[in-house]
């Protein structure tokens, strides 16, 4: 999967691309301004664009318009510090697929990219297989060794989040925010994350699944899979 990250803040861009590249299937290019981004867009085909709105030589929204005018099937995720509704609406109106407010958890961005790619690419085939786990992101059905297991909505979200960020340390705060959404001030009560992990782990093990979920003491969790 080829991704173009358009972000003017060098340090931040570097960290994001480093994080994304940890996933062996992702190839991430970085552009720091509109000019370079347009150039790269001309040269290569990307599956997904991650675009910052405020760029030194113009608005990222311009780039999105260009991409979409080329009838590209690529997904577009806007990242912007400006959380005003205008930006969000105009971004989504010109064809962006998702919107992420800066600052965000890299694991959240990763999960968004994966679910977007799944939505765009695997039309019809939405099954996602990892060892004995198989997830149908369309019907939200989870099977362990071909046996369907019954998960609640938040347990499903949690599993999907862990899987898309597999082999990465995922902080409990990022899990909390992923589960309850941007508005909830979940930092004060992270117990529910533990509760949900416990329930999910129990259901997976009961279905005969290997216990992939490792606790990273004091920090969060890691879905460890070879």
């Amino acid at each position, binding site marked *: 999967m080829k991704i173009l990250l358009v972000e003017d803040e060098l340090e*931040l861009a570097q960290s994001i691309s480093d994080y994304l590249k940890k996933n062996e299937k992702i190839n991430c290019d970085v552009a720091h301004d509109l000019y370079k981004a347009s150039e790269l867009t001309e040269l290569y085909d990307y599956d997904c664009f991650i675009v910052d709105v405020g760029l030194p030589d113009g608005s990222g929204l311009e780039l999105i318009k260009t991409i979409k005018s080329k009838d590209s099937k690529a997904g577009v995720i806007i990242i912007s510090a400006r*959380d005003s*509704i205008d930006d969000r609406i105009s971004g989504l109106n010109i064809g962006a697929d998702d919107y992420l407010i800066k600052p965000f958890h890299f694991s959240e961005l990763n999960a968004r990219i994966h679910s977007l790619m799944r939505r765009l690419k695997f039309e019809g085939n939405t099954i996602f297989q990892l060892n004995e786990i198989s997830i149908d992101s369309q019907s939200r059905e989870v099977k362990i060794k071909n046996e369907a297991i019954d998960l609640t909505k938040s347990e499903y979200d949690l599993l999907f989040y862990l899987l898309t960020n597999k082999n990465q340390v995922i*902080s409990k705060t990022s899990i909390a925010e992923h589960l309850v959404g941007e508005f909830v*001030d979940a930092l004060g009560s992270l117990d529910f994350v533990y509760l949900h992990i416990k329930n999910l782990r129990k259901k997976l093990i009961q279905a005969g699944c290997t216990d992939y979920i490792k606790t990273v003491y004091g920090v969060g969790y890691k879905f460890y899979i070879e």
Partner: protein
Amino acid sequence: MRLLSKTTLLIITVSIFIFMFGNIAFFYISKGMIKKHIDTELVSQMHNVIGQIKKDEALFNITKFSDEVSIKAVHPDIAQPPTFSDTVLFSTIQNIYIPHRALKFSYQSKSRNQIITIHKSLLSSDKLIERITISSIVMVMVFIIMIYIMNRFIFVNVWSNFFSSLETIANHDIKSHEKIFFENSEIEEFNKLNSVLLKMVDRIQTDYQSLKELTANTSHEIQTPLAIIRGKAEMLLQSENLSENDMEQVFSILNTSERLSKLNQSLLLITKIENNQFEDSQELNLKNVIEKHLNNFEMLFEAGEFKLTSQLDSTKIHINPVLLDILITNLLNNALAHGQKTKNITIKLKNSAFTISNNGKALEFPHEQLFTRFIKGNKNKNSNGLGLEIVKKICAYYSIPILYSYVKSQHNFTIDFNQISN
């Protein structure tokens, strides 16, 4: 006390005192003057009587010279110099005692010595004094009423500019960019006051604006470095070589920077609300929005062992969707942060009024400060103390009232959406 009442009261008190003493003095002075006048009359009558006796000694035989003059023969050795005295005589006609002024003197004629007493009734002069006093009291009263009316009249005329300035300054919103304008006055002092006020308000307004801009700019500029710190910390977490202890340290950095960026976002949000940057509003069903958020909060309520009871009526309101989301979630966050475990959180939406209640200890600070920036009830390190201020700002933005009450160890927040509902 109002300025008018205060000045009127003062003027009336002072004039009552002045007139009271004036009247008393007037009473005694006129009484003294009348006495003097009567005394001169008595003396002239004395000469008159003496003159008449000199002419006609036979008059001595009459003991009563007239009603007012009585003559008594005495031993030739007794000499009486003319003496004034006050006496009371019984009037057989009116059957009352009447105050009199008397002049007693002796007169030695060729043949005999006698003491002559001349009386003059004071009745008419006392009556006169009484009348004068009464009429002067009446005059004083009329005068005081006149002063009262005059004071009002002068007051309204002289102070009108002052009051219009006061009104202007009371209605002026420091937060607005509008310049304040005072009416010109004929009175120099008021013009001076206005110019001083104008300067002050201008100063406060520019200070306020620059402070606000500073907050906004700082918050905005801090966002990027914060995001970088967060990113680096998050990357560091992925490092294979960290010990458990190092991981915790890094996580702590990550968490702290997250808190800082939340704080920052809240400050930016407040600035945006104050700058009216949330103009577009939509018709929304409040019930649906609340239910959507309750859904998100459900697992937090469960984890906190809260018992959530909600009773929601369908209510359509016109509001900016982002602000509504923030309003509802901030109140829910507040209930979640300060509610007592295993206790009820109650949410009601009835007749356009939204109430959220949670159990908890009484506030440790005056409840007027509840909506103030950075006032925190508990030492919850994760709360940034801006949530309720934002709620208040949103309510103020739409001029919808928010009420807080503490009844039976329950904190209740009620927002009346009536003004923006259908």
